């Protein structure tokens, strides 16, 4: 029987953390992440978890302490947003390079400047090459469930990479939803115990973590790391299947909506997928064959799966909630185009939307579909890159 609670996205993730019961959480407040850690701190204060918290003086130290903690063999978590993630930057690479399976919910927020506290994907997009796995969430339920799965994915012996679970700032993090919270014991059993092979606290076998690694070995270690990210593609699917077996809900790298007979499709990440579903339903009633592909696994990028799904449409629009500032388009657009290279010659266009939390109303998405249907008909791209909803 479902156990529905009225929770914000941040609270839902805090509930996942409570059920995961990590050994160590190091955190620093930043809007819109703050209420997530506040909720988790309540669980700590009430003795609902055994977690030791490190209330550090910066995000740089949060990630640094996480590296120390994970290297010591503790299941370790933190959470952040925007500039906080940017301050962690240097240590993101050290966490992944040391193969430490740290789990970090990131409440997506626009990066400064100009300073803005609202949701877009510019923060985690900048970290897309940091060798962190990135799972995007459409709503509070997904943020909760992605967080639970993240632990298993990161700690898998074939992966051993840190993982970000993203949720859109304010739209998901502060929006109240009904969230089905699973039984504590079932979550605990699903997550299992963290049993690392190498730790700083094994005094029978002292180890050196983070040595100087020059031209004679560095490359091999990076090659192994790349293999871990590749393996994550398989492991994310396996954990998703097991999640379905345990909790009855399927999780894959991508989620299609009304794609089966669609002529055109949009591709996007995060909460806008929910709004777009509403628009698709409306357009379907008007007889227009439209659909969407929501990307859940952004890193590693499920290229083959995406190419297989998208190569049969007549026109594709990629919606990016961040700009690449590369005079080409957004980061998702670049990856989708690369995935489809040689697979299809259909028109692919890019829309950049919602920067700094700018609202994306149904009318804007409807316009995207209408333009896309026109592009499919004429087979001509009028505008390869459109800034949607900008004055």
């Amino acid at each position: 029987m479902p156990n529905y609670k009225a929770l914000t996205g941040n609270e839902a993730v805090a509930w996942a953390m409570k059920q995961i019961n990590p050994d160590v959480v190091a955190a620093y407040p930043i809007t819109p992440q703050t209420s997530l850690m506040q909720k988790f701190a309540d669980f700590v204060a009430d003795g609902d978890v055994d977690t030791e918290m490190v209330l550090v003086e910066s995000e740089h130290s949060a990630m640094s302490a996480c590296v120390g903690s994970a290297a010591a063999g503790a299941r370790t978590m933190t959470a952040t947003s925007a500039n906080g993630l940017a301050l962690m930057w240097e240590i993101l690479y050290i966490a992944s390079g040391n193969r430490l399976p740290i789990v970090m919910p990131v409440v997506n927020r626009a990066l400064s400047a100009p300073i803005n506290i609202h949701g877009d994907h510019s923060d985690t997009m900048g970290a897309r090459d940091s060798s962190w796995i990135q799972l995007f969430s459409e709503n509070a339920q997904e943020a909760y469930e992605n967080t639970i799965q993240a632990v298993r994915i990161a700690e898998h012996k074939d992966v051993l990479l840190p993982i970000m679970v993203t949720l859109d700032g304010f739209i998901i993090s502060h929006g109240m939803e009904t969230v089905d919270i699973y039984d504590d014991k079932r979550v605990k059993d699903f997550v299992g115990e963290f049993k690392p092979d190498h730790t700083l606290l094994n005094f029978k076998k002292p180890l050196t973590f983070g040595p100087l690694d020059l031209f004679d070995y560095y490359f091999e270690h990076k090659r192994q790391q790349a293999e871990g990210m590749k393996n994550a593609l398989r492991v994310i699917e396996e954990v998703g299947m097991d999640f379905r077996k345990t909790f009855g809900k399927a999780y894959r790298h991508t989620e299609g909506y009304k794609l089966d007979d669609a002529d055109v499709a949009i591709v996007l990440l995060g909460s806008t997928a929910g709004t777009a579903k509403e628009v698709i339903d409306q357009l379907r009633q008007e007889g227009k064959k439209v659909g969407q592909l929501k990307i859940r696994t952004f890193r590693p990028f499920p290229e083959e799966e995406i190419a297989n799904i998208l190569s049969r449409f007549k026109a594709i629009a990629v919606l990016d909630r961040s700009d690449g500032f590369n005079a080409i388009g957004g980061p998702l657009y670049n990856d989708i185009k690369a995935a489809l290279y040689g697979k299809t010659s259909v028109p692919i266009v890019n829309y950049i939307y919602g920067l700094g939390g700018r609202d994306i109303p149904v009318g804007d998405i409807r316009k995207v579909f209408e333009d896309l249907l026109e592009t499919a008909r004429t087979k001509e791209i009028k505008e390869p890159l459109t800034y949607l909803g900008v004055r």
Partner: protein
Amino acid sequence: MAPSLKDLAKKPELLSPGHRMCAGCGAPIAIRQILHAIDGPVVTGCATGCLEVATTIYPYTAWRCSFIHNAFENSAATMSGVETAYRALKKKGKIKEDKVNFIAFGGDGGSYDIGFQSISGAMERGHDMLYVCYDNEAYMNTGVQRSSATPLGASTTTAPAGKVKQGKEEFRKDMTGCMAAHKIPYVAQASISNWRDLVAKVEKAMSIKGPKFINILSPCPPGWRHLPDETVEMAKLAVETCFWPLYEVEYGKVWRINYKPKNILPITDWINRQGRFRHLNKPQNKHIIETLQARVKEDWEILLKKEEIFK
């Protein structure tokens, strides 16, 4: 209790020979003395710097104990994570050891400058760990650049003595004083030249639960420009001139000077032995020496007064 050389000689060497620190480097002398003072399991960590790069060249390591290097500015934050992990895992019965020593190292660059915030945070949070700064008074690993630990008048590669500038134009930061202001259980200043004092301080630090900080003067032959076999002598002269007093502070309150030179040597006895101060011997730079000497004297007098407060 003051340790004896005989006892120390029986202690295991946790920093093995064969590392690639320069001949005459003060840092490994400091590390060996510190590790001799430790009983039981130990986790060490180090900021990016000479000590780290020269002791952990993969696939080799000179560390016979657990060791972690993370980055330049976060040795303290990293060790605070390790120490927290220990407490979490101990609570859950996953670790047997009842007492583990946690020691984070950093040079003056990693401690006085880029890692200052990280140390301040870790000390304020009360982690059961010792932070050791091996202070060689400049960014030696990258080639002798000025740090906030560099003394007034010293020539470095980023603040060199030239036609119009005469080396560093500012006084050094009082890092030990900054740490004492955190009112943590134990703060000390030590020197590799006074090994008995240094070992006793580490033993004392590790007998106290909570955050501890020790600042150790660690001469650098290529940076200070003296001969490799003069390292210990250079450290000793810094102590005898009162440039580097040996003292300890408990809870930011009780100040105790551990060594008072009977005849305080003039600062020139120390600086005249080092190439980095050579330009100060020009007649037109005499005032720099006088300013430095006056500051050393003033600091020493302040320290004597601090000792009187809670004697």
